């Protein structure tokens, strides 16, 4: 090809190469008469007067893009390295560990009740749920049974946590996809739940609500009225958000068909929670390996059909409604009675007893100084957290501090499937898919 009429000469980065000083080699490109941008494949610099036009080979180059670790839309400190062919993702390599804080190591240096504050901080959107999960595991390890009142209170705690976790997911996913208003609505509802938590245990977010064998505190007077008031107003908010998003053309267009996983793939990748259920596998720990007498509550488990982002959204919205249903049943059936079990080798005796009765005082002393000691053994207890199957694996050697405290993190395993989910999608879809997995980095990195 000979010379052509050039409109302009633009300087741009040519094929990736560096000269002897390590600077990128710059190759001029031209705009042809037809208006197409042609790129030169020559490695050596050319003069401005004459250029040789070659066939543009824009399809051959892939870009390497780094998202994170500090990024508004990665839901925490996550680093995604994407290989892009234009706007399409060819490969995604996630890097985690930017929030690794040594939870499991610390668990080996703390008594069982002292570990409970760490369970708050790990999946911090589901603090009470984590507290409950830990307490269930520790109680299995100790071999104590909890009272009926404690059982129902823990169901209430778990379901309220599920609601606030899903609301954070909803708010942040909406922001990622571009809808700002549901974020404000969702967070305002969360403030109502935070007020309930504050009244119950004194903290909004990091609740440390359970103890091995019972709860940190019983609910105060009037708390159930607060819960019922919340349950009466919350479904209206769900409906409002539903009306805004579910049949919204933009929302549907941004979420349908993305990141789909087939049921077999989802099971093999170890996905759990709404992710797995949206792919069509009806595995819910509350139904399949029940705890806290969930088999006595009437609730449904929503299951999706395609496994894409839209289905995950629908599953989580429906789970919000089902949680309200469970909470209403729990609020109706809350029995009276003690909230802590009566085995004072495991749980602190009431203060009045500890001050008057010798045996109680000794129990109190031993538990505060040494901590309750379980028999030698191990156990794994899993609950259905809003993110998926959350499990705590304890190994005890008979001392007050566990030999091993393992957290089975649902978000960690769910996130490992992201390279599979984002292949072939566009760059903005990566953000939507990442949001739909509902990760919380505190749990992933522990």
């Amino acid at each position, binding site marked *: 090809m000979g010379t052509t009429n050039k409109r302009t000469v633009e300087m741009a980065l040519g094929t*990736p190469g560096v000269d002897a000083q390590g600077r990128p080699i710059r190759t001029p490109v031209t705009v042809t008469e037809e208006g197409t941008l042609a790129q030169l494949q020559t490695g050596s610099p050319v003069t401005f007067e004459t250029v040789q036009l070659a066939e543009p080979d824009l399809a051959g180059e892939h870009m390497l893009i780094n998202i994170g670790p500090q990024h508004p839309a990665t839901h925490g400190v996550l680093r995604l390295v994407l290989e892009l062919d234009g706007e399409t993702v060819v490969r995604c390599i996630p890097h*985690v560990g930017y929030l690794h804080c040594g939870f499991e190591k610390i668990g080996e240096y703390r008594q069982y009740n002292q570990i409970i504050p760490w369970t708050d901080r790990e999946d911090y959107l589901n603090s009470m749920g984590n507290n409950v999960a830990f307490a269930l595991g520790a109680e299995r390890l100790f071999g104590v049974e909890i009272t009926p009142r404690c059982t129902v209170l823990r169901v209430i705690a778990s379901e309220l946590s599920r609601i606030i976790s899903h609301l954070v997911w909803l708010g942040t996913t909406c922001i990622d996809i571009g809808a700002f208003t549901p974020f404000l609505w969702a967070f305002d509802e969360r403030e109502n739940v935070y007020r309930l938590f504050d009244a119950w245990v004194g903290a909004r977010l990091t609740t440390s609500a359970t103890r091995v064998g019972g709860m940190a505190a019983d609910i105060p007077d009037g708390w159930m009225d607060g819960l019922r008031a919340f349950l009466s107003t919350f479904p209206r908010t769900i409906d409002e958000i539903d009306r805004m998003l579910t049949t919204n053309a933009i929302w549907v267009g941004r979420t349908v068909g993305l990141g789909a996983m087939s049921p077999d793939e989802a099971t093999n990748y170890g996905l759990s929670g709404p992710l797995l259920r949206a792919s069509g596998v009806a595995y819910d720990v509350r139904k*399949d390996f029940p705890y*806290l007498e969930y088999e006595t509550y009437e609730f449904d488990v929503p299951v999706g059909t395609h496994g894409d982002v839209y289905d995950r959204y629908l599953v989580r919205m429906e789970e919000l409604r089902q949680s309200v249903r469970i909470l209403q049943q729990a609020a109706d059936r809350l029995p009276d009675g003690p909230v802590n079990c009566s085995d004072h080798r495991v749980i602190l005796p009431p203060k009045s007893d500890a001050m008057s009765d010798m045996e109680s005082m000794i129990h109190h002393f031993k538990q505060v100084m040494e901590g309750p000691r379980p028999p030698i*053994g191990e156990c*794994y207890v899993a609950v259905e957290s809003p993110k998926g199957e959350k499990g705590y694996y304890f190994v005890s050697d008979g001392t007050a501090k566990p030999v091993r405290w393992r957290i089975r993190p649902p978000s960690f395993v769910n996130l490992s499937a992201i390279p599979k989910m984002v292949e072939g999608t566009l760059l903005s879809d990566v953000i939507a898919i990442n949001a739909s997995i509902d990760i919380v980095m505190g749990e992933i990195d522990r």
Partner: protein
Amino acid sequence: MSGAFTPVMTGSADPAAPRPVTPKAVPYRNGAVSPSAAALRAQFGDAIRRVAVVWGETTVVVEPGREGEIVRWLHDDPSQRYDYLSDVTAVEFRDVEAPIEVVWHLRSLPFRRFLRLKVELAKGGPLEVDSVWPVYKSADWLERECYDMFGIRFRGHPDLRRILMWEQYREGHPLRKDFPLRGRFSRSEQLRQALMANPEARYSMEELSIADAFDDLPEEIRHRLATGERTGE
């Protein structure tokens, strides 16, 4: 998608089984053994070291080196169908002579069963087990974390490198019992090493080998990358 949709139901392999209930009064020892233990004994005989039931959970300890085929059998066999890998982790005991145990938590969704598989690795020898990644893709990151925290190598894992700590982390494997809680180095030294590491200023060889990018680079820059020089800010 047209046609009726049938979700994959759990418990489908045994429809006559009673609905699951919350376990009550779980015995400490000598609870009901999972049927998979007997099936494993029948199939693998000598590879099964012992079976224990603690707090209602069946634990099967197998010979090191046999775990790969055992896991594969548990996944494929139609009477077992352990299709879900819940966790891969390791346990080191405080007793110095006790072996390190590598633990697999398997679930069978069709049968609604839970099984714990263990392998004991003596501390003096190489800490290596078979990777179960060919069977369960969920083992990918779980095994990487086990390697990062304990130093256990998984044979057959496609990409065994550190995941939670940065790759040039020099203090050791944090969850080992000889690793102190606050780390081996002083705080200022830890900070100094962390600031030097700067993991996201580097792209791994794998990332840079993407498509044609690596081949297009001149020889000199490829050599510079290979010696660990930082690129790309």
